């Protein structure tokens, strides 16, 4: 039993990513979408916090949203995987529930 968490807010603007990371559990997945993709960037003020979770939780970034914002995959933290909308669907199907951190 695991959860797909979606985060669609910039971690520099709101506390959504922090709250999500504080509540997700081992085996869960976090998918960053929309303005949430900024949370995957390396070298930022929140990168350490995200990297610390990346062991127990799988972290994904929605590539179409990252591309729109000019964020190449190589700018992302190590271990963060890019997915397209089909990958988003697969993640939603593979986990028992989806929780949106709006």
């Amino acid at each position, binding site marked *: 039993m695991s959860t797909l968490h*979606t985060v*669609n807010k910039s971690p520099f603007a709101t506390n959504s990513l922090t709250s999500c990371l504080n509540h997700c559990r081992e085996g869960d997945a976090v998918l960053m*979408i*929309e*303005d949430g993709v900024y949370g995957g960037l390396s070298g930022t003020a929140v990168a350490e916090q995200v990297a610390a979770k990346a062991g127990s939780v799988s972290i994904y970034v*929605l590539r*179409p*949203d990252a591309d729109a914002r000019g964020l190449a995959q190589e700018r992302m933290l190590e271990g963060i995987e890019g997915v*397209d*909308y*089909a990958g*988003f*669907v*697969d993640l*939603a*199907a593979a986990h028992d*529930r*989806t929780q*949106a951190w*709006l």
Partner: protein
Amino acid sequence: MKFGVVISEGPYTHEAADTAYHFVKAAIAKGHEVPRVFFYHDGVNVSTRLSVPPQDERHIQNNWTALAKEHDIDLVVCIAAAQRRGLLDQNEAERQGKDANNIAEGFRISGLGQLIEMGIQTDRLVMFGD
């Protein structure tokens, strides 16, 4: 697998209605079912047939209407949220004594019970909002 989808923000203002659209298309392309999309909060604004986006922009309402027609998706607009925000179908307009209505083809106005029912009847519920 059956997916239920909720859209909670208005078109153009937020990306929610766009992301949901791409998600639903991808789910159907993978052989999943999306029997219903529920529009709540400012999401009800997606259903207006009066929007005129710039020529070089996507037409969010038209896209939903077309997708719903092609794949038989039930696009439900929450009546309570819609009334507050000025989204009415012909029946509602008459009942409320309003001289115009603005709901687009393919959308129907109904109650919040449709959201709960969607949660009960689908395997996964995915929310897009702000």
